């Protein structure tokens, strides 16, 4: 009997570990999908791919496969968790299943759309399905990761858990950025459908939504680990690396801007330093001004297309993107700086309120 109990207990431990690993893999899968998606957008701008079967689509669907397999493992391991732990993660598991169902369904839907209407724009029903599924999966998995490793995350020392939570945060940041791009970039005017957002709406939305998102994710990165310096800096820097790899390095005309782009590490690290050193809540909130005001630099080069529609009205050729971006900087930055800074503060307040709920404290 004792041996049997030991076996069950060991098996439960294994399941518990498996649940955590599969949650990370779900986030990792979504991260791969977002990388493929971002590369796909750049590929469309540069090469106009004429077939569904392109390398970025392959990456994207490899990500979907990883997410699908991990979700299945997550579900079966969750079923074998202890009742108390099981109920803590129930909502996340359901959301992940709903997310993967939408994500998997988006594949054939996308193929059907390409087959019937040719190349689709950025904002199309199958793409919206895909992104919604990604956001559901990544948010649910990030919550699972944080709840599972909460005790270790708030300890005074760095553990591997601190670094694993980065995957979850990055997946949420990139998938939500994808959704925001869909509602702001003018890439959705196709032969059969005109889904481009209104230009003024797109600019206003970009100016509020992106700084809000960036500062809230960086704030969460810091608050999940009890304001230890480092994790927010890593999350922000990895975002810059991924964006540079998929949007800048692919376009040979933008490669000279790489140094300029990576200066973005400075405000990210400063924000992290402020969060880890300022104990007063109000000061922490106000520090959201920094990632808020810098979003115009973090989201280079794609953001150029949105602001060009209102401020420049040129054809944004891949070879001209940097020139148009820097030409607009002088007129755009003074207009967006204050609303973006306020959105950054709102992002930190939102993240602060969400931290408790996400951690389940």
């Amino acid at each position, binding site marked *: 009997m004792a041996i049997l109990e030991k076996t069950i207990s060991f098996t439960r431990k294994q399941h518990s570990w498996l649940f955590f690993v599969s949650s990370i893999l779900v986030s990792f899968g979504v991260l791969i999908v977002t990388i493929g998606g971002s590369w796909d957008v750049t590929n469309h701008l540069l*090469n106009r791919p004429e077939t569904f079967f392109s390398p970025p689509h392959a990456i994207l669907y490899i990500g979907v496969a990883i997410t699908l397999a991990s979700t299945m493992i997550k579900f079966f391991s969750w079923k074998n968790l202890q009742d108390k732990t099981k109920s803590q993660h129930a909502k996340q598991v359901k959301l992940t299943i709903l997310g993967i169902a939408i994500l998997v369904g988006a594949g054939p839907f996308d193929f059907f759309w390409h087959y019937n209407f040719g190349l689709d724009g950025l904002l199309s029903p199958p793409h919206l399905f895909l992104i919604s599924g990604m956001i559901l999966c990544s948010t649910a998995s990030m919550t699972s990761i944080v709840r599972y490793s909460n005790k270790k995350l708030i300890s005074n020392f760095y553990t591997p858990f601190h670094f694993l939570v980065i995957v979850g945060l990055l997946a949420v940041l990139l998938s939500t950025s994808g959704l925001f791009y869909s509602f702001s970039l003018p890439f959705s005017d196709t032969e059969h459908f005109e889904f481009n957002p209104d230009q003024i709406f797109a600019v206003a939305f970009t100016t509020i939504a992106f700084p809000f998102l960036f500062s809230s994710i960086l704030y969460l990165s810091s608050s999940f680990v009890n304001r230890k310096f480092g994790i927010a800096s890593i999350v922000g820097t990895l975002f810059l690396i991924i964006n540079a790899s998929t949007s800048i390095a692919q376009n040979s005309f933008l490669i000279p801007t790489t140094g*300029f782009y990576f*200066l973005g590490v400075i405000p990210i690290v400063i924000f992290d330093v402020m969060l880890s050193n300022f104990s007063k809540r109000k000061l922490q909130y106000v520090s959201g001004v920094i990632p808020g005001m810098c979003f115009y630099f973090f989201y280079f080069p794609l953001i150029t297309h949105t602001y060009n529609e209102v401020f420049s009205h040129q054809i944004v050729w891949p*070879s001209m993107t940097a*020139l148009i971006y820097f*030409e607009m*900087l002088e007129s755009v930055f003074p207009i967006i700086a204050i609303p973006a800074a306020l959105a950054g503060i709102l992002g930190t307040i939102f993240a602060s309120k969400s931290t408790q709920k996400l951690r389940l404290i």
Partner: protein
Amino acid sequence: MRKLFLYCVISVSLIAYFSLTLFVLPPNFLEKPKLVPQPTFDVTLEKLKINLGESFEIKVTSNNIGDSADIQIASIQFPNLTEINETVKITEYDFTQSPHYVLVGDPVGSEYTAGQKLVAAKYPSIEAYSRPINTGDQYHIGLQVMPDSVGTFIIHVKSVILPHYTDSAHYPQSGNLDYQGEYVEAYSVEVSNP
């Protein structure tokens, strides 16, 4: 004291960051000379005279001898035709994008404005194009043409690189203008009764 030091470091770093990104670095990118791509092409006509019912081959080799750019288009127009149908067949093609068939009446860009100024196509054409286009890139298109009437069969060829900011971005740079207000090189084949 530690707090004061921290405030100083944060302030100096932020001033440095915003100075670099708003004032110091942008002029470096704005002052860069604009790229000057330069298209050319070579045309090989297999025959100058044929009998009705026979066909001839035309090969166009398109080059970019200038800077890199976004798109290079080689356009081959058929002023004698109202439809391409079976008269023209593509026998060779290595441009990176699929060829685009322009039909009579289609809206097409004019005066090198990249589609910002449109006119209706007066005769059919085939547009071969690659994107992006690097210095020294060379692409080929070969056509087999079987005219369906006796007389002089005319073919216009031109190449345009986009974005088009200087006269160097099109070839030829003088000569005959087509209905798009763009320069073309004209080639002809005499078609006679057998």
